[in-house]
């Protein structure tokens, strides 16, 4: 259906304001703006880090200074002044917290508004939450229960102190410091994030989840997440984000590393709903994330599922390095852009081991004046005998001021492997809309339903609890896009 400009404008004016656009007033403890060795020392000191960590950071900083910002993605934004950003902000630790009652009530209220039930109900639901408020994890629940089975789930800052051997061994092993401009930056200044360790043969008894939240003005968020699963272990990790309304752009450059050993499995699910900026894109989050998993062991499996609806700019390619024979990589993605949002997202599947398999299902939906790009790479290296890849990327356009791009790269260095790629671009058919409306659904309900149907193959990969939330989010994200 070709929506007329008139309808689009009319509906746009009635669009709900960003649901989660509010800001919490909490005193913070922060370093001055800008980035230099002293700031890095400050961060490291604040975190009470051992010397090897500080050295690692300083080394990364040195490399970062010699690197250039990537410019190949199909996104445009004003140049970022990296000296105009706060690199450290933490809620003031009044004292050590033992229970939720001790947490700043303002903070708890914020979580409530966000719909994060950080309470007993969560335990009944079997979800442990490591809530990252700005840069410091202030409350981590259920750690005891997890530690009974030997699972370590804690802020990475704690892991650096308490499990230095594990961190030292794996940090930077999947995403090298100099992988790209933003990984080097992250390595120098990361403030916190999650650390998960699943020992041999342990199936993590609950889904682990972290809610990210950007709060302090001009605070760059530099999360660092590391998940290591030993032989025959299993973990499902949920990441959800939402940020308050801002006038200035906020940079987020996270790094996530996953390591899967023999016969282990990691399922990493993300629902990302950061503030996308206003109708012109002003004030939204810049989300420049590097996520990568390494199937190090044989028969291991890493599966990424993402529902990306927020941020003014998304630059993100969760990838799998399939080293172990018979290992499996999966990428399921829904990316929705509306108004002035720009998303350049996709995946890389690097096949190294024999009989490795990968599946890529990407669904891009663009509305408003937005720009949505799928960029993916499938690489079959010599030695990846009998490797298989199947890629499907479908785009849906709503209105005639948005755009959709598909940029797949297929590099094959071996005959005994099979790579298949399919892509389509289409619109919501007028027939489908009319059919739903004849049954009494209004245009937005109908669109939301059809779009959810379009995304079905991805949505069904999400854990149940997340799926319901994500389904609603798709509807909310498209509000105002149809007439």
């Amino acid at each position, binding site marked *: 259906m070709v929506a007329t400009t008139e309808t689009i404008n009319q509906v746009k004016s009635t669009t709900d304001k960003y649901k989660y656009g509010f800001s919490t007033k909490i005193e913070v403890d922060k370093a001055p703006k800008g980035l230099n060795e002293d700031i890095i020392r400050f961060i490291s000191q604040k975190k009470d880090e051992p010397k090897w960590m500080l050295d690692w950071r300083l080394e990364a900083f040195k490399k970062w200074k010699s690197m250039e910002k990537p410019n190949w993605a199909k996104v445009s934004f004003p140049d970022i002044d990296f000296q105009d950003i706060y690199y450290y902000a933490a809620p003031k630790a009044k004292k050590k917290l033992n229970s939720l009652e001790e947490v700043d009530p303002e903070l708890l209220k914020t979580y409530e508004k966000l719909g994060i039930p950080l309470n007993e109900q969560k335990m009944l639901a079997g979800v442990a939450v490591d809530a990252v408020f700005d840069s410091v994890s202030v409350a981590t629940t259920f750690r005891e229960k997890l530690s009974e089975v030997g699972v370590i789930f804690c802020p990475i800052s704690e892991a650096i102190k308490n499990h230095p051997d594990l961190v030292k061994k794996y940090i930077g092993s999947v995403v090298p410091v100099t992988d790209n401009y933003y990984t080097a930056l992250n390595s120098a200044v990361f403030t916190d994030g999650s650390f998960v360790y699943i020992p041999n043969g342990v199936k993590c008894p609950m889904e682990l989840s972290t809610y990210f939240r950007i709060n302090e003005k001009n605070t760059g968020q530099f999360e660092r997440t590391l998940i290591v699963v030993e032989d025959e272990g299993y973990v499902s990790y949920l990441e959800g984000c939402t940020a308050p309304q801002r006038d200035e752009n906020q940079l987020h450059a996270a790094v996530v590393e996953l390591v899967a050993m023999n016969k282990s499995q990691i399922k990493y699910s993300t629902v990302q709903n950061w503030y996308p900026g206003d109708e012109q894109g002003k004030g939204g989050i810049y989300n420049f994330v590097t996520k990568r998993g390494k199937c190090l062991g044989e028969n291991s499996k890493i599966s990424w599922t993402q529902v990306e609806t927020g941020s003014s700019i998304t630059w993100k390619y969760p990838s799998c390095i399939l080293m172990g024979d018979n290992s499996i990589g999966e990428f399921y993605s829904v990316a929705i852009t509306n108004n002035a949002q720009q998303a350049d997202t996709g995946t890389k599947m690097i096949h190294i081991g024999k009989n490795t398999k990968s599946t890529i299902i990407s669904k891009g939906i663009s509305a408003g004046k937005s720009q949505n790009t799928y960029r993916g790479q499938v690489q079959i290296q010599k030695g990846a005998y009998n490797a298989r890849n199947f890629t499907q990327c479908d785009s849906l*356009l709503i209105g005639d001021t948005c*755009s959709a791009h598909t940029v797949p790269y297929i590099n094959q260095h*071996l005959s005994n492997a099979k790579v*298949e790629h399919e892509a389509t671009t289409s619109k919501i058919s007028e027939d489908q809309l009319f059919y739903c409306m004849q049954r009494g659904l209004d245009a937005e309900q109908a669109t939301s339903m059809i779009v959810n149907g379009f995304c079905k193959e991805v949505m069904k990969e999400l854990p149940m609890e997340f799926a319901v939330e994500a389904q609603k989010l798709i509807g909310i994200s498209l509000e105002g896009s149809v007439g």
Partner: protein
Amino acid sequence: MKKARNDQFFSNLEKFVNKVYPNQLQRQPYLSLKSWPSPRDEAWKFSRLGKLARKNILPLNLENQQDFSINKLIKDSISLVFVNGKFEKKLSDKLLSEIVIEEVQIEDFKEIINKFDNLSVKNHPTLNSTLSCSQKFFKIKFKNDIKFYKPIEIFNLGGSENTSIHPFIFIHLEKNADVQVFQHYSTYAGLLAPFEIINLSENSNLEIIKIYDDKINSHNLSLTLSVIKEEANLRSFALIKGGEFTRSEMHTLLEGEYSNADINGIYLSSGSQHHDLTSCVYHNVPNCKSSQIVKGVLGEESTAVFQGKVRVEKLAQKTEAKQMSRAIMLSDKAVSNSKPELEIYADDVICGHGATVGELDEDQIFYLSSRGISKQKAKVILIDAFLNEMISLSISDKFHDIIYNETKTKINKLLANEYE
């Protein structure tokens, strides 16, 4: 140690142009390109010119002394022969009155070039070198309403290892003309840089078949820019089998409604050959159709690239664009790269692409073997089927056998080498 890359060619070119055409200022702007595209240039990421850059090449400006004989593929065709990039009237057939060959100036077609406002065209080494040093710019014009049943065969011959040759041709079809053209590239040139412009007026039809079969040390960087008007139809088919490095790059602009472009091709790569089919179709107006379909067979240590792009502008509603690439790899040392790209700004379009890379289907081979057919023979049958499908889809029936035979010799060689 590898010899370092050098961009000597471009200073040679500049000296050559300033000496030979000192007063032709129109050539000057095309001398601004000073180096070969690097692998950091997205358009050349998979087709690296390092080896070409290390060649010591000079533009050729010799009068032809040799005798050439041409092998027409089609008995009653009309031949046009270019030797060393220069039109040889005495080797060519006599023209009919409906066809006009005339010399033109850059100014006469500059407007067409400027329609392709992107860097991969503007900075293309062929566009720049050929416009600066080609001896004459020829336009071949087919008059209104011609239905031409004798195909035109254009032969590109000549060259030597250390020279570059720069044929230029501007094919212009007036309204309602209907023409078939064969382009043969069979040179010995170190670098062949053929630059071709195709201009299809309203309701005209052009079927163009390009056969790239240069000698084994040649680099062929062919570039074709096509502009298509209302209800006109371009049917282009490239068969790449020769050269050390052959890239067939086509940019096709659909600027009249209800026009159509099929930019298809086959590459057959052996030894250490590098073959590249790069195509970009720009849908600027509504109700047009395009297809970019490429199939290839790779043997030994060859590498092949398919880069296809469809760009659908905001105005170009009701576009139907199709992209498909399929490669069969016969050897583990071969490398296949493909990048089928869609860039879409209109919402009421049907665009799809597909790509597969793999080896011949083991089940099919087994099935044939179980019927008493040798494995090698089975492969021949399956590859034949794979290519035949493509040939019948892409070109007029009357040329099937001719093109099929052109593939056959190469396929036999490819499979024979695999079994050595």
